[in-house]
């Protein structure tokens, strides 16, 4: 049954870019893989939430079930960075997840699943320059479920903020007057003392890291009305 439509459980172009296995071998592994890569998770989604959803594709009566879940972590901070591996006991369960779960929501985010060659130690860590996933390096949007701005954007923001902070580090509470009306030269004038305090970092309201579990209160375009 795949003449009329494409089955959703076909391997996509997802791959482990650091694998040392040749392409043919990779295809063989994928054809019996029981491991899934799961992406676009919120940083706050727990393993138990993942278990709850993925167990729906489990077939314990055929000797299956969720074998383990490996949470993807930021290399530096050891905090979840938005992906995981779900390993089942059987290949069929992984295929079922591709057909039924990939593209649906978990924790109010659309997640994607891909067949994976199989977990190896070390793969649980993000490979982005900042420790998280590469995709979070260059992201341009603000995503509260994934730490706000992308890492590059965050770095840029931090950089800009530092510039801003340094710029006024020498502020002495003395504002320049800006030059007054034209006056006769060489007439001494008493300076106007303004005692405004310097701008401090606390005043910066644009704290990029959203509070824990912050979510955009966007009106979900998919939401149905009942």
């Amino acid at each position, binding site marked *: *049954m*795949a*003449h*009329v*439509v*494409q*089955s*959703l*459980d*076909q391997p*996509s*172009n997802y*791959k482990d870019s650091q694998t040392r296995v040749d392409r043919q071998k990779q295809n063989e592994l994928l054809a019996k893989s029981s491991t899934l890569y799961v992406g676009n998770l919120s940083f706050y989604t*727990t*393993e*138990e*939430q993942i*278990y*709850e*959803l993925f167990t*729906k*594709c489990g*077939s*314990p*009566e*055929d*000797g*299956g*079930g969720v074998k*383990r*879940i*490996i*949470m993807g972590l930021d290399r530096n901070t050891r905090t979840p960075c938005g992906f995981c591996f779900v390993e089942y006991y059987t290949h069929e369960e992984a295929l*079922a997840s591709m*057909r*039924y*779960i990939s*593209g*649906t*929501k*978990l*924790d*109010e985010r659309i997640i994607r699943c891909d067949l994976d060659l199989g977990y190896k130690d070390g793969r649980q860590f993000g490979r982005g320059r900042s420790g998280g996933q590469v995709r979070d390096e260059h992201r341009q949007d603000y995503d509260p479920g994934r730490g706000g701005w992308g890492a590059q954007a965050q770095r840029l923001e931090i950089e800009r903020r530092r510039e801003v902070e340094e710029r006024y580090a020498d502020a002495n509470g003395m504002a320049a007057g800006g030059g007054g009306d034209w006056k006769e030269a060489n007439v001494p004038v008493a300076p106007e003392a303004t005692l405004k305090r310097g701008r401090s970092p606390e005043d910066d309201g644009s704290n990029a890291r959203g509070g824990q*579990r912050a979510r955009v209160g966007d009106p*979900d375009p*998919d*939401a*149905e*009305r*009942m």
Partner: protein
Amino acid sequence: MSYERPYYNKRRNRDDFDNPRREVYETPEQKIRTAIIRLGEVDVLQEIPRVAKQIREQAEGSVPAISEGFRIGVTEEPYKIPYYAHLLRLLHDPPEGEAEASSSGGTSLGKQILEDFWKGFQAFLDKLSWRETRLCIHFFAHLTMAKVISVQSMFNLLQSFVAVLDEFGVSHGRAKRAGLCAAQGLMIAGKVLKEDSVTNVIDIINAIQIYIETTSAAKRLVQPIVHYHAESDTLENADELLETALAVLKTLNASDFAETANSYPQPYADLPGLPEGAAPFELPSVLVPPEIIELDGLAADTSEDAQVKKEEWPEYYIRLFDNEVTPDPVSPAGYAVRSALLDIVEIFEVNRKECARLLIEYPKWTLPGTFKPRPGTPAELQPEPAPGKNWQLESTLMEIVLGSLFVLPEATYKAIYYIGLITEICKLSPSTVGPAVGKSIRRLYASLADGLDVEVARRFAEWFAIHMSNFGFQWVWKEWVPDVSLTHQHPKRAFMRRAVEFEIRLAYFERIAKTLPEGLQAEGAHVLPEHAPGPDFEYDEPSNPYHNAAQSVLNLLKGRAKADDVLAHLETLKTTIGETAEGDVNVDSVIRSVAVQSLLNIGSRSFSHFLNAIERYLAVLRSLSTGGIDARTDILTAVSLFWKRNRQMISIVFDKLMQYQIVDPTDVVAWTFTNGVGNERGDTEGPSAINAHDWDLLKGALDKANGRVLVARKRVSALRKEEDDTRARVKASGGDVASMEVDAEAKPDEPPESAALTTAVKAFTSLTTQQKNALARALDGFIACLAPLSSDRRANPYAREVLTEKAWHNRANWTDDDWNAWETWGWYRHFCRAYSPYLRSYSTTLGTVSLKKFEGSTDPAALQIVKIWNVSIGEES
């Protein structure tokens, strides 16, 4: 193969060489096949002559490709079948400019295609691919109406399927499918069949009726609405598939199939007969091949070859809406629409998104006026509403998909498929599908109070939670606030609790709490759990007498002490506690609880932490579990106490304890009946009962036991096959003259069974024993709940009463104990039908051990238990 849409289009440049879906050169044969498959993507009636022309132009040598196109179209796009019949009829005409077909002397192209198509049909039938077979019969039936196929040969074809119903000991699944083949063929072609012979038609209808009459006992076990007192076969809100087909045939027959034209499109109806000189196609006669030999339970207990054959049951579909809103399954037009939609849901399981699109687009394949026009359709394009039709598409789709999800004992596919399909349908048209979803939920919720089957209620809660998690948890809970005045165990309240619990599992406590109105958040509403889910380490409190002991164990575990050291420390603790404890203390129990809870405590941060913790201390757990059933019960109890605020974790931990072989499935089954947490008391007081949460634990354990046997059986047969092959190879290579003369008696030396095979056989034997024990323990557990001895301290006084009609009508006044008893009956009934194939293998042993005592009993509970049991093992019909 190029018809598939290129997925991942966006990324193609980047990774093109990986992508199997590149544009490839299409041969003329592939092109013609594709043209047939894509028939009607814009306007089918307009396209038919064009495609007919295209086929003619390329027909030379392409007949197999053309007939393959038809075969794919017919079996994978059944909504196009009438149009394919039309197309094939046109291909029977002589090509333009060659008006005198007879003069050219050759067989018409249409006939050549049909001859080749038949081979494909025969192949489907040989493999017993029932759906494909049935859809080909639809095609043949339309062709009979189009005068392409001879009426007599069509009747003979249907007759071959009717004959299956008479086979000795035919399985229900086989009879049901063969019956549907005959029935649906007759619905489409009945008009001409009856013109040919009235008795032929009556014969088919009677044969189906006679078969259905033998299934009444089985039907009562799988009806989605349960009334234990009622013996009636018919339900108001659900219909059995084969039975509706029979009702439709009777209606059609009464009017000599005049209604067929109002039920199925017949685009070919106005075409003239075949050109002069062309005879209608005679379908060859067929025999429906027998099923693969069943071992018929012969020594199935230990037979390694016996495959678990899921026993097939009558198929009930729940009704949610009135006949004005959604198609009436017993009206010819309604049946046609419903069965077409069911086929789409089944065929397109591989791609739920495409399936949703095809379902939404389905009206374009129906007769005008079948469905209400989509909102926003210009008035001039709106067809006249057809009398008795004009149904709502979205409500119909909900009823069909939910109906498929709720088929008992289990749906064709996993529940999550149907749930995901509904999500996709909603995404395609949120404003029109949303209200249909809401109405469906309300109907189902209302039916909870009127006997909705417990398993259907469980799936309902599961769907509800997953659906809401895909749509921002937006549900109008407010309308259910008044129901908090119902008794705590009332199915409606149980549903609310369960739905909220499932939602929390998919999200988190605060997220769900804020979706609930005040009336449901209030203390005493008991909809939301008191606390967010979390661990509950009993020994955390310094006032706990074992606080210090637990702290010392915890420190060892946190310091990653060696398992041996932990065990040694536990021994010391045993002595100290034994010496200092006041009163009657079971020191072993205390130690087990302290150790297990401490272990869970260090692993409480996540599923992975838990796995790491138990893997590190497997030796400790093994040692703790060696004290017999009591020890294992203590371990399970410790788990249930530690995770009493998170039932999801209880089932996860139980599952892994079985996986690591700390406890057996039988232990979990036994524990559930004696200490079940589902009663929401967390103790062993009060009448025994099984509710949905207990069922989850039971199911987890029974599936584990059955799954292990399956895996072990596969392993044994794989090894057997391997050795047989080796032996054959040895024989073949030594096949000289001498060995060929060896007397049959004196077998050549066979290599002994390998060690691997011996081990595998041994494992298989012990796992089947475990399986039998788990099933037996469950059966005994149910019997103890439902037909308790009066001496039983935990006897539920209402276990017998809730079965009576009088009690049922008084259910508005039922207490928690009544509802608990009623629900336990529901789970027993589900246990019997869901595990029927396994129970059958052990029916003799189980029946003798557990049910013998009821022989001659007049206890209504005993009678009901035995009755349900007998139906499930196929001994009562």
